[in-house]
């Protein structure tokens, strides 16, 4: 028995050595390829998993579009949900020097990115949906991309308020309350909410917004529960902004005969048909389009995105709202009104406040419109 175990262990060791060798050759292979092909090498670091139907998937589709256009070669690494490993991933891909650009995103990444970006100053980084600053200065090798989700929120708010006051949707209650189920109390989500509130109140100043946080982005059942609590308090159109958890609210809306608005991607296309039927639109955050935009500019020789933070909005198609599905079924007045507001924002006639403005007390606004007081 002992002999058998010893032999087995030896075999395992030999196997391990052989296996190691193989991966070594595997990692060096693409390097030689790059020198031949000379295509831009991009790595997309996902701090979580793909399949969120939200910005990770969107970033992935942008990368794919660039690759299909023959502009880049990309690799996506899903780093999983263990935050403690993320910095190692960034360090590893940066030290490999295989990639021209490292792409990552979300507000959780700057802390993991900053030490690496400071160490490898020749390596270019793009970070989306947040900004990277050290001592109030942008790092020269990092391009921060932010989105004007406040503008998009404004459009959603206008549309929801019009549905609430002027549409013939069945089952709406008398109270002028809109719902908002947010993932976590973070500046980005507050930015959605600020736009939503201002948009809704631009249609009818009496409209209240019942906003509540879920506390995470995955607990869809809790999202549903909070949606149900908001409906109980009088909300009849709920905007779910919080990944899978926020989308959970659609089930509460369905059970109580109310309406839902999706976020990030056009959720009417991914939800079950019975839920898609009550999803009136989705606020879009086109991470993929924005990455395409920035990388194409880079290939054209425009490096102005690095060393600063760029805000992409309606004009760059960085944000928008879904107009294909249930939106198109609404009365022409409502559609026209929303489109008119969009033009006004583009023309700069309407200025939407943002939660990123340090002088703007957004919590004051949010607390003021809360219905439950």
């Amino acid at each position, binding site marked *: 028995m002992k002999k058998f175990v010893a032999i087995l262990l030896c075999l395992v060791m030999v196997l391990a050595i052989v296996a190691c060798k193989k991966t070594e050759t595997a990692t060096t292979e693409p390097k030689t390829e790059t020198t031949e092909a000379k295509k831009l090498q991009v790595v997309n670091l996902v701090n979580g998993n793909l*399949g969120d139907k939200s910005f990770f*998937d969107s970033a992935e589709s942008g990368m794919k579009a660039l690759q299909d256009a023959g502009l880049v070669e990309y690799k996506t690494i899903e780093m999983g949900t263990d935050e403690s490993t993320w910095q190692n991933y960034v360090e590893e891909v940066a030290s490999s020097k295989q990639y021209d650009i490292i792409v990552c995103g979300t507000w959780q990444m700057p802390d993991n990115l900053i030490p690496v970006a400071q160490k490898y100053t020749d390596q270019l980084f793009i970070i989306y949906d947040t900004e990277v600053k050290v001592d109030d200065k942008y790092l020269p090798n990092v391009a921060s991309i932010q989105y004007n989700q406040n503008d998009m929120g404004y459009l959603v708010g206008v549309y929801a308020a019009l549905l609430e006051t002027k549409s013939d949707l069945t089952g709406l209650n008398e109270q002028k309350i809109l719902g908002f189920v947010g993932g976590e109390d973070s500046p980005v989500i507050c930015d959605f909410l600020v736009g939503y509130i201002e948009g809704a109140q631009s249609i009818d100043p009496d409209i209240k917004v019942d906003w*509540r*946080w879920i506390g995470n982005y995955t607990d869809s059942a809790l999202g549903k529960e909070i949606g149900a609590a908001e409906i109980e308090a009088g909300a009849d159109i709920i905007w779910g902004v919080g990944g899978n958890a926020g989308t959970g609210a659609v089930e509460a809306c369905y059970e109580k005969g109310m309406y839902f608005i999706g976020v990030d991607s056009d959720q009417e296309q991914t939800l079950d048909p019975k839920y898609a039927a009550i999803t009136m639109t989705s606020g879009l955050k086109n991470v993929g389009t924005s990455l395409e935009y920035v990388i194409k500019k880079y290939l054209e020789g425009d490096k102005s995105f690095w060393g600063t933070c760029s805000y992409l909005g309606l004009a760059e198609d960085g944000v928008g709202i879904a107009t294909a599905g249930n939106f198109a079924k609404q009365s022409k007045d409502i559609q026209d009104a929303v489109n008119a507001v969009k033009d006004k924002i583009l023309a700069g006639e309407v200025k939407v406040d943002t939660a990123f403005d340090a002088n703007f007390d957004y919590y004051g606004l949010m607390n003021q419109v809360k219905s439950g*007081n």
Partner: protein
Amino acid sequence: MSNILSSILTTSFAASIIRIMVPILFAALAASVTEKAGVVNIGLEGTMSLCALIAVTCAWKSGSTLVGVLGAMALGVLLSLMIGFFAFKFKTDIILCGIAVNTLGEGGAVLLLYLLTGSKGDTQTVMGAWNLPRVTVPLLSKIPVIGEIFFTNQSILTYVAFICVLLVWILLYKTPLGIRIRAVGENDHAADSVGVGVYKIKYISLVICGLLCGMAGAYMSMSYMTMFSKGMIAGRGFIALAAQAMGRGEPVGVMLSSLLFGFAQALANYVKGTNLPARLVEALPYVVTILGITIYAISTFNKTRKIRARQEKKEQKKAAA
């Protein structure tokens, strides 16, 4: 403040408590059965996660939600037996086994989800929405208030959960198997000396645990929600452990502590509608959890002190003899 009071004195608030407590109750009952047999199964979270996914998948493949529940229960048993197999056969630390199952539940569910649907987010796009039958009990639903809360339009698993409280109580206190389970949990050497198959009993307790965990998972993905989404269990398995500890592993105690957790979470959801600081309110269910664990810690501390005192006495007697 009066607003909160008036909103929590409604039937929908009570219904919310029940929705929140049912998965915790299932899992906490599962934990109490193993706990009584002296098996510490902390793998509830991972088991629930995989069971929730399998429930929807089986329902989708077969077209029947019943098959979904049975599939989830089967997987629950399999995973629990796996813990037992490694812990008893190969003498692995059972806590490590539990951690392994939790990790497997988190990562494995995403992998399986991806293999099944090509998406790593949720099952809805491919599998659609699945909902277990909702039942309104004919006569009982006519009772004012209580009828509306408990017996109207409830998921069939909600009734099963409360029936399980009774069944687990009968099992533990009114059957020979229950006596053996408790004996093994109290002192497995003593049980062994009178001819009880210790491991057999421990395996049986794990099977029961798996069945209940399977139902907890199926409830999450086919009653609470109508789909599986990544990370949807969100710590309910651990809250169930706290509920089990707080209820001292007694079925009725476990039911009451689950009710308390359900109440805390539902209250937090309703209070979030006011201007009280959101982060403070969000902490409410976790404060209750910490309280539960503290009570557990104190009770186990007392228990071990008693056992130690008993052993010391024995040794003194030996020494005297």
